[in-house]
C-alpha cells in the first residue's frame, strides 16, 4: 500500500525535473531500489502505472535496478552479500556489521521528450 505514496513521490520529483528541462512526456524512469527496503518492485510498478495517469509520466516504464544487501564485518573486515536480511557475517558469525548497500531508494535518471 505504501508503494502508492512512494509512486506519487517519484512522479512528483520526475515531473519537476522534466518541467525544468522543458520536456513534456516521460518514457522511462530508472530507479535504484535496495533489497533492504520496504519496497516490492512489482507493487511499485503497479502503483506507478495508476498514479501516473494524467501526468507527464503516463505510460512511462519504470526500470528498477535492485541493489543487493552488502556489508562489511567490523570483526573480520570482510565484505559479504546476503539475500535475506539476516544480519550475521557468514564468514565469522559476527553481528558487528556496517551496511554498505541495500537501503537505496533513488531516482537515477529519467528519459523524456
Amino acid at each position, binding site marked *: *500500500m*505504501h508503494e*502508492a*505514496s*512512494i509512486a506519487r*513521490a*517519484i512522479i*512528483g*520529483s*520526475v515531473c519537476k*525535473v*522534466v518541467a525544468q*528541462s522543458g*520536456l513534456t512526456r516521460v*518514457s*522511462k524512469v530508472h*530507479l535504484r531500489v535496495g533489497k*533492504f*527496503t*520496504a*519496497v516490492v518492485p512489482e507493487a511499485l510498478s503497479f502503483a506507478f502505472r495508476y498514479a501516473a495517469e494524467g501526468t507527464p509520466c503516463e505510460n512511462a*516504464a519504470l*526500470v528498477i535496478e535492485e541493489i543487493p544487501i552488502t556489508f562489511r564485518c567490523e570483526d573480520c573486515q570482510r565484505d559479504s552479500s546476503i539475500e*535475506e*536480511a*539476516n*544480519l*550475521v557475517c557468514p564468514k565469522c558469525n559476527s*553481528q*558487528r556489521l556496517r551496511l554498505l548497500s541495500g537501503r537505496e*531508494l*533513488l*531516482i*537515477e*535518471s*529519467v*528519459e*523524456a*521528450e
Partner: protein
Amino acid sequence: MNPWKRSEGDMEIRVVERILAANESQAKENRELLSSHGVFAVNLMGTPGAGKTAILEATLKVLGGRGRAAVVEGDVATTFDSERLARLGVPIVQINTDRFGGECHLEANMIESALAEVPLSSIDLLFVENIGNLICPAEFDLGQHANVIVLDIMGGTDKPLKYPLMFHVSQALLINKIDVADNASADVGTVTENAHRANPSLACFPVSAKTGEGVEAWVEWLLQSAGSGVARR
C-alpha cells in the same frame, strides 16, 4: 524491448535523488522543531492488536510526574484510541489517514500538521502512535528521536525474521502480553534473539501493559534516552 536502450528522440536526464527526499526534509524540520522545545519524540509502531494504546496508557501511568507527555494518535479511521487515552488527561491530537488517502503509515507532513496543535512548550515527551503495520512505517521518517516497536508475544516469535527492516531501524522493542503467554520466558528469549539478528543493539523489554510488569524498565530507558539529548532515528 531492451529497457536500458533509449528511445529515438528522448533525452536522458541524470537525477540521482532520494525518492523520499521530500518526506525526509519535512521529518528533519519536525525533529528540529521538537528538539528546539526540548521534546523527545517516540514513533510507536507495531502489529495491529499488539497493544500499542494499552502500552501508552501503562507508560503514562508509570511515568507519573517524571515527564509531561502528549500523544499524536494515528489511525486510518475512528477516534477510539484517542477516546481511551483522553481519560489519562494528556493532550491528544488525532490523525486519520483516510483524509490523506487511507495511508497504511504516517508521513512527516501529517506530523507537521499535528504538531501545530501540540503544546510543545509545556511537554517533555511526545508519543506518536503509528498505524498498526510492521512494513510500511519503517520507510517513513516522521522526525522522531526513537523508533519503538510493540509486539504481542502471542502473535508468534518469528516477526523479527519476517520483517527485519522494522527492527533494523528501531531502538527499542516492547514484547507485550507476557502475562498471558504459557511459555513467556522461552518465547521472550526467542523473540529477543530473533530481533537481535536484525539489530544487535535493539533494547528489548518484556512487558505486560495489563499488569504493569516490566513497564518501569522501559520508562527508565525512555527517560534516559530523552535525557541524553541524542537525536536518534
